[in-house]
């Protein structure tokens, strides 16, 4: 493969995640210029916790989108899982056991998604859209709209604690990221996931167990939603039935900004985390600038479009060479 006369800049921007990372760094500098509070330990912790939650949701979506599917349930699962774990602890179940039960519940829900999609052939959009409503509904009905107080010290530490000055959620994010990255890049399972996304029929014909792989993908998604929900509930100190509305779109946006393609077959964990960071930074910027809340929707929308457009244009240049 020859040089094709590419300039140094073009070679650099060939690294997709690099582009977004640059944007993040530039953005950080701009924010700091506007408001010195940006780099205080407290604010950085706030950002880190935000990135942890959206990052884990985004990583979950990444694997799903790589296979050409989608999961619209993260927002509602945040609420449902938060409420469930809160109820369990309220009924006297100890925190570790409550978390374990919750994760098993998430596996079951993921299996339900997988079964509906692979056995009944329902499109992921509809199945997960149904779940978006159903699980939000269960969360609301079981609490009559009231949040559930969580007082378990260990549990709260998960969301609010620090280890060596670093928020616990960051460790969880790193663990999740390393695990998923390993699965996607170093295991046959990961290759199957990319293969299915690239060309499902070809994958099936080459002997890849498409059904099992897809089921796994949706199970890992709901489990990661569960983990993220635990972090969120721990941070809030409450299982709230009203949280997470619209978060599914943020999670998907983080994945897409990070380079995951809706057409399937392309995406990385690192890219998604950078995407999630960018969205958390923008959110933080708007808060620091004391911008009125409704501006954030408008600005996030513009950012998503700009980020993806820039990415498309630079990708085109690369492909044309």
């Amino acid at each position, binding site marked *: 493969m020859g040089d094709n006369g590419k300039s140094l800049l073009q070679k650099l921007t060939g690294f997709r995640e690099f582009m977004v990372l640059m944007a993040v760094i530039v953005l950080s500098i701009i924010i700091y210029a506007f408001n010195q509070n940006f780099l205080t330990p407290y604010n950085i912790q706030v950002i880190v916790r935000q990135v942890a939650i959206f990052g884990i949701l985004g990583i979950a979506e990444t694997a799903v989108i790589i296979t050409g599917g989608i999961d*619209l349930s993260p927002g509602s699962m945040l609420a449902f899982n938060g409420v469930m774990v809160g109820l369990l602890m309220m009924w006297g179940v100890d925190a570790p056991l409550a978390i374990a039960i919750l994760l098993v519940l998430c596996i079951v829900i993921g299996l339900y998604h997988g079964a*509906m999609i692979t056995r*009944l*052939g*329902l*499109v992921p*959009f*509809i*199945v997960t*859209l*149904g*779940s*978006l*409503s*159903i*699980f*939000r*509904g*269960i969360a*609301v*009905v079981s609490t*009559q*709209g009231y949040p559930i107080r969580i007082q378990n010290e260990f549990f709260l530490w998960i969301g609010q604690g620090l280890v060596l000055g670093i928020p616990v959620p960051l460790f969880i994010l790193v663990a999740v990221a390393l695990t998923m990255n390993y699965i996607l890049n170093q295991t046959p399972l990961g290759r199957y996931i990319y293969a299915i996304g690239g060309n499902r029929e070809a994958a099936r014909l080459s002997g890849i167990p498409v059904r099992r792989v897809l089921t796994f993908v949706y199970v890992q998604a709901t489990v990661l939603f569960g983990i993220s929900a635990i972090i969120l509930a721990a941070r809030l100190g409450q299982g709230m039935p009203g949280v997470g509305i619209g978060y599914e*779109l943020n999670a*998907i*946006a983080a994945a*897409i900004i990070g380079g995951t*393609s*809706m*057409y399937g077959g392309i995406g990385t964990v690192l890219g998604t985390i950078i995407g999630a960071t960018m969205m958390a930074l923008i959110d933080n910027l708007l808060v620091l600038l004391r911008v*009125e809340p*409704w*501006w*954030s*929707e*408008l*600005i*996030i*929308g*513009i950012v*998503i*479009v700009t980020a*993806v*457009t820039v990415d*498309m*244009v630079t990708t*085109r240049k690369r492909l044309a060479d």
Partner: protein
Amino acid sequence: MAVDKSRTWIQRVGDVREINVLGFVLVAGLVIYALNPTFLTLFNIQVIMRQVAVFGILAIAETFIIIALGIDLSVGSVVAFVGIVTALMMGWTGNNIALSAITVLAMSALIGLYHGVFVTKVGVAPFIITLGSLSMFRGGAFVLTRGYPVLIRDESFRWLGQGLLGPLPVPFVVLLVVAVITTFILQFTSLGRYIYAIGGNPEAARMSGVPVTWVTIFVYVQGTFLAGVVGLIIASRMSEGLASVAGGYELTAIAAAIIGGTSLAGGIGTVRGTVLGAILMAMIDNALITLRVNAYWYNLVIGAVIVAAVTIDVLRTRDQRTV
């Protein structure tokens, strides 16, 4: 039963699916009626018809787009944004309905053009570009109004959203007109054939000379244009522009289309089926209120209905589907 040979196999599959939805609608209707007879009073049916109109027009818009392998997540936000611009324009032009409506519809079409161009020329995924619009226009709506309603002080404008033509609410008549026109386009024009062709196999379509770019742009333009129509209807019904209306309507519209037989894999779908899907969604919406179901159960019921309707449909057409 004579088979109409001019109908392609795609359309015949669509037919089968509609019987499923129709059955579901009738059964659901009977059950709700049995639980509360006021469900079928003229007044309540008119209420349902108004809601069917809103969901239906949006769902038809989505149908065109989904058949052509696209999607539009922005329609709910565009509806709200249009409502506000309408209210503002009415204020600025001294209640000139014609000018306000034309401006707003033109604006809607331009938004669709923006979507279409970005999808075809820049190559951004439809999900993302319309997701961006969902945020931009909803956010924009709030920025313009800070959440406060913008009142429309014109009696005659109310007719669109609140009036009746005989026993039928005006919005429902608008839906019927839209349905007839769009059915005509899909079934009897080359444009319609091109839309199905692109959805079935984009590359093959391109190579057979289908003007893929123009047709794709068209479906997105009609998408937001119809969202603009709905925006006018709702602004008229409420006599105000409000930034928070139509939240989540894009998902309901897409669900209605899919329940009605439109396939996210592209190339399949009918206006008939979509309208039935919209009727189902509006009926359930209304039933929850009529049956005085505890508000907390809404989400649960709607989600369960969507999944059940699509599951039943899939199970019944399993043997007949070739997709």
